[in-house]
């Protein structure tokens, strides 16, 4: 069964450093998303991406964040200068169409120290 894969599973970084979280969405999906879940809190939407551009983003997704689909398979989230409060589990997801369910990856646990 096709699945969304994320790497790495766990990333530890120093405050102020740049991190790139990687995702390989399901191959025939057209919509891609990043969500995050701060420990003990609910899952929050960050950004959606369609047709090689951001289609929707939340207020969390400020200038520190960027997304890219550098080739036909990868979808990345970059945090330019990490802050302690960026520590969270980051989930990538993809969906075939806008109105269908999103499938989530296993997540990358980002720890900023």
């Amino acid at each position, binding site marked *: 069964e096709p699945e969304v894969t994320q790497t790495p599973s766990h990333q530890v970084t120093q405050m102020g450093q740049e991190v790139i979280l990687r995702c390989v969405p399901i191959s025939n999906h057209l919509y891609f998303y990043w969500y995050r879940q701060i420990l003990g809190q609910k899952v929050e939407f960050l950004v959606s991406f369609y047709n090689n551009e951001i289609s929707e983003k939340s207020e969390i997704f400020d200038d520190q964040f960027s997304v890219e689909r550098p080739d036909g398979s990868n979808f990345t989230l970059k945090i330019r200068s990490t802050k302690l409060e960026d520590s969270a589990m980051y989930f990538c997801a993809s969906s075939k169409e806008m109105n269908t369910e999103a499938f*989530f990856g296993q997540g990358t646990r980002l720890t900023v120290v």
Partner: protein
Amino acid sequence: AQSVAQPEDQVNVAEGNPLTVKCTYSVSGNPYLFWYVQYPNRGLQFLLKYITGDNLVKGSYGFEAEFNKSQTSFHLKKPSALVSDSALYFCAVRGLSFQKLVFGTGTRLLVSP
């Protein structure tokens, strides 16, 4: 604005008994509703969705959910709980004009043997 409420932090049920996990939502227009399950250290797994049609939708692992427009609810149900159903359950809603999913805070289901 879209929102989801899951009024119970935890639901306890004995194996073999029916279970209900509650969810109410708020969205402009017709909602797209979803249930996801999260096992420890895992991503979010899609269980079922309501887009249109029958108010009772069936999903994976014997789960079903009933859409009630007048009560703006989408409660998750299962006729006979299994210990392996113990996990964190998230209800989510998407409005017609949006791509983002808005999640509830999650309900921990604990099924005792």
